[in-house]
């Protein structure tokens, strides 16, 4: 249960660079009225960023050639089906984790 001053300073540095991008937009939109085209662009961000996070996890870029991350792709199929039919965050997460646990158990 110890730490050092240099470690504390490093963590504070990381905290500041994480905190600024999170908070600056909240301050910005209070003082600047965003143009209509920016608001329309922002309306695409939720689905785009969620898609990007999902897609990124389905690829494996560790080798020289980018391939599909087959384990994640296989686990993704039942996960997606449950998401589409139940539209439930909780059920989807449970099915996803169980599928992955079973896959890892057999592979």
């Amino acid at each position, binding site marked *: *249960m110890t*730490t050092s001053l240099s470690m504390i*300073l*490093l*963590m*504070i*540095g*990381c905290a500041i*660079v*994480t*905190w600024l*991008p*999170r*908070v*600056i*937009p*909240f*301050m*910005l*939109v*209070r003082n600047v009225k*965003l143009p209509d*085209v920016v*608001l*329309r*662009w*922002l309306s*695409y*961000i*939720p*689905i*785009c*960023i*969620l*898609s*990007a*996070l*999902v*897609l*990124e*996890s389905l*690829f494996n*870029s560790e080798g020289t050639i*980018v391939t599909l991350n087959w384990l*994640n792709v296989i*686990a*993704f199929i039942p*996960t*997606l089906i449950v*998401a589409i039919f139940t*539209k439930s*965050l*909780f059920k*989807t*997460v*449970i099915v*996803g*984790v169980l599928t*992955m646990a079973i896959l*890892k158990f057999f592979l």
Partner: protein
Amino acid sequence: MNTQMNVNEALPLDTFSQGVKDCIPTLLGYISIGIAFGVIGITSNLSVLEIFLLSVLVYAGSAQFIFCGLYLAGAPFSVIIITTFIVNLRHFLMSLTVAPHLTQYSALRNIGFGTLLTDETFGVAVTKLAKEKTIGGNWMDGLNLTAYFTWIASCTLGGVVGKWLPNAESWGLDFALVAMFAALLIINLVDVGKTKLMHYLKLIALMALIMYVLLYFLPGHIAVLITTIIVATIGVVTEK
């Protein structure tokens, strides 16, 4: 203070407890990743106190993992800080998306909303926005604080039990995050309506292609940021 109370009364679902409730489905993700982080932190020679402080101060899953990796590799502090900045830059876009809906609250409360914004709370907040067109400050606080304290507790727990739980990364619990993003994506897509749905499906197909190409040149977290910016721009340009 009074004006804020009035704002809150106008929104029937803007309660702290509703925010807590809406956070619950994401908790499995926080708990599993948090414990995994604690275990990795211990194996990266961090102390339990340092794991606790990192989750309190930085509060960002992927950045904390990368922090451990770089620290263990003996990277200079400047490299660790710059990498953390780049990994978390996507939060700028997320905050910018959520912030216009919360401008009626005080600057201090807005700093609070931004400070505790993560991939997961962003996902839940925009899903509520897609459904109800509005989000409230009390609801945001309930969501954010539940996620924050669960994350700190899980990371610390992982650090405490870390000595007895090697190879946490091989359990596959990290797939909880992918499953959660997939569910949030589907729920958001359902709410856009039929005509826009086709537009979005084409955009997502295009995104897969762009993502594939970018992954040859860029680490995953930067590819996520850049594909999002490119595809959202194409979305605006091609919308009817």
